């Protein structure tokens, strides 16, 4: 078991290296160099383009051979020297440090919401299979996974903020993050982001519960005289939920981060998605790259954590 943990961590390090390298390759493959983008921005200020280019290249070492640049790049990334954001006049590191909490909060709340409702409703639908509750849940989950999250956000704003006036149409950063007022204005974004997630978890839980409800150990549990809620809530659930951990983590990487990016933009929440979005249109590429890499490394870390948690939770793997 310990050797597995070590192997897994080493593997993650390899993947981390791969991530940084591929990003570097992508950046250098682009038609415009980082310098060109920067110059686009200051060209309006009328400075002499060539001399500015040369001084930048010298400062960032872009005139050195590419291999050397690669190592400088890797070194910088690992040390937290993520560049300068000229559109916000601070280091990329500072920019990210002051905005990450908004993304974190949004994703955390949406995921908790999605897990509680998704797993709960999924269990209900499975136990009441083929009843109206089940059909309603199935329809709801199909709709939930098919609705574009960002459009749902727009519709929520339109109905509840513009026409009903229950919420403001913009996100007010005046409130402290965990205050009640802030949580209230997060209701719509959390719904917009969470419903898609919820629908996925509902479907998965329902199907996993149904699979397990047919299994022999359920009959044994009943034959022992256990109350039905123990049979379902303990015996079946524990088996059904195991792979759910993996699914939640997988979703986080593939769907939720992208969804959060869009949700922040729609609702104007100043998280990392919004930061990256602003940077795109200011051509502030260091920020764009940094946000992407942060998201990726988070996914990497979460994958590692999930693997280890799952190994611990499933006795069939733990003792093998």
């Amino acid at each position, binding site marked *: 078991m310990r050797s597995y943990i070590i192997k897994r961590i080493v593997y993650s390090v390899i993947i981390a290296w791969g991530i940084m390298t591929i990003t570097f390759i992508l950046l250098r493959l682009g038609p415009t160099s980082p310098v060109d983008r920067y110059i686009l921005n200051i060209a309006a200020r009328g400075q002499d383009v060539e001399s500015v280019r040369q001084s930048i290249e010298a400062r960032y070492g872009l005139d050195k051979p590419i291999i050397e640049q690669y190592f400088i790049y890797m070194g910088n990334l690992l040390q937290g020297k993520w560049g300068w954001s000229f559109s916000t006049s601070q280091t990329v590191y500072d920019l990210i440090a002051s905005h990450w909490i908004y993304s974190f909060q949004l994703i955390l709340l949406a995921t908790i919401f999605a897990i509680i409702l998704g797993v709960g409703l999924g269990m209900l639908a499975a136990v009441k299979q083929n009843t109206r509750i089940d059909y309603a849940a199935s329809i709801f989950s199909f709709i939930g996974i098919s609705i574009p999250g960002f459009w749902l956000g727009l519709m929520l704003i339109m109905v509840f903020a513009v026409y009903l006036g229950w919420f403001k149409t913009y996100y007010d950063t005046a409130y402290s993050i965990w205050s009640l007022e802030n949580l209230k204005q997060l209701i719509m974004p959390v719904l917009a982001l969470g419903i898609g997630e919820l629908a996925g978890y509902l479907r998965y839980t329902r199907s996993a519960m149904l699979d397990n409800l047919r299994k*022999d150990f359920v009959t044994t549990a009943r034959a022992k005289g256990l109350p039905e809620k123990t049979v379902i809530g303990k015996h079946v659930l524990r088996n059904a939920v195991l792979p759910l951990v993996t699914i939640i983590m997988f979703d986080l990487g593939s769907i939720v981060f992208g969804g959060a990016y869009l949700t922040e933009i729609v609702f104007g929440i100043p998280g990392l998605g919004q930061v990256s979005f602003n940077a795109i249109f200011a051509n502030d590429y260091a920020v764009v790259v940094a946000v992407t890499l942060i998201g990726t490394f988070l996914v990497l870390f979460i994958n590692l954590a999930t693997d280890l948690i799952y190994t611990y939770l499933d006795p069939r793997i733990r003792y093998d």
Partner: protein
Amino acid sequence: MKSVYGNYAEMKSKTILEVINLKTWFFTRRGIVKAVNGVDFALKSGECLCLVGESGCGKSVTALSILRLFDSPPGRIVQGEVIYGGTDLTKCTMPYLRKIRGKDVAMVFQNAQSALNPVFTIGDQIAEQVMVHERVSRPEALDKARTLMEEMNIPQPGRALKMYPHQMSGGMKQRAMIAMSLSCNPAILIADEPTTAVDVTIRAQIINILQELKNGRGMSIIFITHDLSLVKEIGDRAAVIYGGKVVEVAPVEHILKNPAHPYTIGLIDCLPDISAQNKRLPSIPGSTPNPLAMPPGCPFHPRCPHVMDICRAVEPATVNITDVHAVSCHLFVNMRGGSCNG
């Protein structure tokens, strides 16, 4: 109340469980599966009654029906009674039934690997059953579990308690499952083909355990099997099931020496005889009936070498050919005048 035994009063006094005209049907999209279609038998206290039949004849569903353990949306007991302790288990309330389950009547299943929950330790699973029926604490329950494992001759019982099912060998799992079923000292043990999925050496161990339970503790056992040789080893009486009905009931020696029903005769003939030389293995022609489309009259008539016109139309009544031997076949309904019920 129908009974298939001649000396009704005597039988009644020792009967601990009685199944009367039980019919369990499954209402599926493709039609009604009449898995159990009129099963009668009585279990005497301290005896081992074997339910014998081929796969699909309804013996497992019969066993599940006693405790209403089959999947209930498609399945339903449409007729019949299961009398235990004066109560009809087919109609009692769920809380009452749950008190009986695991405590008065316990079940052991065929495949120990799938019957045990893979994510809980064996100790936990046994202790759980004890705690649901008796007011004991968890350490006490685990202690009881340990004792049970010892009785089952499971090596290193303390360590075994902490094992997960997949860590145990086939025989160990099966014995652990038996230990679990005994944890609350049930009066009746229903064993559904407990030896089918294990190899011969384990089979012998399990049969020994069951015999010990019967002789030593006076436990009543319903033993379900398709293997006639097992019936000979462990059974006191046997009930042969075909097409969801009991076609013959008698003490084991009687059935093996004087089988009455053509199906039983066929089954016994199928037993491979090691002394027979170069003979083709006999088999019963035809195949088991499709429970979705049961033939009318006697369910065995399509394959019966003695089939008569009446067999195709009318279900045979059950007749006592001796006071301990009953059969459900038109051959006997016509021959015997008296003691005919139904």
